[in-house]
């Protein structure tokens, strides 16, 4: 059992980091092994923001192997060198935690595949997100702990999706935590509640097509599946609709891009989702109490039906 939440403001910006923290904290009983945020902040859209990790959080019940902290510095140096080789210029550098970094970079090439492959060829290094608006922050612990650790309360943006995880299919570590970046597409992220039963068949097929998996978490498949569909020219909504038959199992998932947010529910409607829609805000979560954390007044909500796909624009 995991919890997912998302919101999209239409026509304005808000403190989406703070809002999503409240929504996910309301769902912490659904799992607090790890919590992840995909926040779409207000930026000038010129430069890329790269969130990446050079190691794992080895505390708080982690299943990761403890490493000497010095390897983090070595990996960071290699990342810096590779960025230089790729023609990317680091404009701003933040080291939030020894293993977690945020770079603002000037990079003009559109193809992120080669870029990502080069960076992630360094053992222990994973790009959590790459985009001109998207920032994926994920770590062990509940929503409040992660929010405080990464100071997300003040982040202003238009939309966000997040995930409170109870680890069932894979380890308690950052690489298995949601959201997943829709590698190698800029600004695409996915969160999922459920279990996928044709993970390995799909994974083998997608890997043969050149797609990359960083974890053994079944949910990562959704991000890779949609990325592959979009790479082949499908729109986000088309890819999501195809996923209803292409993915087997039970799922409710959210996917976000630079200017949109979508949801899909499997054909058995086995996983919960409550939706609130108004002209200026759409909010959704595994339980209504998530929405109530930002809208305490009486509101009209509903459960989307089985096999339903919806996409909203900012």
């Amino acid at each position, binding site marked *: 059992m995991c919890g997912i939440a998302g919101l999209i403001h239409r026509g304005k910006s808000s403190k989406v980091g703070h809002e999503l923290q409240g929504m996910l904290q309301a769902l912490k009983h659904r799992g607090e092994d790890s919590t992840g945020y995909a926040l779409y902040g207000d930026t000038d859209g010129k430069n890329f923001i790269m969130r990446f990790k050079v190691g794992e959080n080895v505390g708080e019940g982690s299943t990761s192997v403890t490493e000497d902290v010095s390897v983090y510095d070595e990996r960071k140096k290699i990342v810096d060198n590779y960025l230089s080789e790729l023609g990317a210029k680091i404009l701003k550098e933040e080291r939030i935690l020894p293993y977690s970094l945020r770079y603002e970079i000037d990079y003009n090439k559109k193809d992120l595949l080669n870029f990502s492959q080069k960076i992630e060829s360094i053992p222990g290094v994973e790009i959590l997100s790459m985009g001109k608006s998207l920032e994926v922050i994920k770590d062990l612990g509940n929503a409040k702990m992660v929010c405080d650790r990464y100071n997300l309360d003040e982040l202003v943006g238009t939309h966000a999706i997040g995930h409170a995880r109870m680890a069932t299919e894979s380890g308690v570590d950052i690489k298995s935590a949601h959201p997943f970046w829709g590698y190698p597409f800029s600004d695409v992220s996915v969160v999922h509640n459920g279990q996928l039963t044709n993970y390995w068949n799909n994974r083998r097929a997608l890997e043969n097509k050149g797609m990359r998996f960083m974890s053994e978490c079944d949910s990562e498949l959704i991000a890779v599946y949609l990325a592959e569909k979009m790479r082949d020219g499908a729109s986000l909504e088309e890819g999501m609709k195809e996923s209803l038959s292409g993915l087997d199992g039970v799922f409710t998932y959210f996917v976000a891009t630079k200017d949109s947010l979508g949801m899909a529910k499997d*054909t*058995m*409607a*086995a996983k*919960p989702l*409550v939706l609130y829609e108004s002209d200026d805000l759409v909010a959704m979560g595994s*339980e*209504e*109490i998530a*929405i*109530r954390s930002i809208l*305490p007044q*009486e*509101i*009209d*909500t*509903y*459960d989307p*039906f*089985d*096999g339903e796909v919806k996409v909203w624009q900012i």
Partner: protein
Amino acid sequence: MANLKNTEKKTKAQAMGMHTEVLTGRTQQKFFNPDEAENFYYFGTYDVDFNKRTDLDVKDMTAAEANKEIDNLMSQGFGTIVIKNPQGKHSLGVGILNKLNLIFEGSLGYFGMGSCDGPIVRINGRVGWSCAENLMAGKVVIEKNAGSCFGAAIRGGDLICKGSVGARTGIDMKGGTIIIGGDAGAFTGFMMQRGRIIILGDVGINLGDSMYDGTIFIGGEIGSYGSDAVDSELTKNDQDWLKRKLKVAEIGENFDVSKMKKIVAGKKLWNYDNLEPTEKKGAI
């Protein structure tokens, strides 16, 4: 091996080697005497006055605290309780075994009004998953929408949602009536064993999948039929019953029930002949 057919009944278990001692002693079974009113005492019930009314603001309460306070108010004789600010909390109003007018001014989360026997409940907002699960008797009316597993395993009472409901409505239900004013999702009536479901709107795929018994009435379109769910003739009696039920439920009073579809179990999967104990008494 012992010949069980020819062995005395009281020694069968001993003949099979299950035990050797002779069982003696008094029975623990208690018998009711209708003349003795105290034997009809139902744990957790109170004498309440419907005209005695109070409000309860649960905004800063946990579900357990709110439910305990409802019980406390009933013990003081309050027969009408208005719950303010439920704010989507889970498990509110569960386990009420009393006659009671209970009004929620707002929405409930999961498992609202579960395992109740007798109250008349009106919820002005929406309810989450598994509303009124295991309802034995009473009436629960939801003014807006409801989540999945609406009325799971109910045995009696009327459960009414004026809006739309999610998937698996009436799953495993064993009696009572569920009435939906809007649409319903997939697997409506999944494995239902008795009772009736009325959906005025459309319904999703696998309607009545693996149902043992019971009846489903659909006013709109059907996504698909589930295993062993088949059409049946809508009789005049059915139509009269539907009209009465919709009128009492204050929902779809002018709905043209003659065009509704009636779905029952084909009984190829299951044969569910045994009556409930209470029904047996009536049949005898």
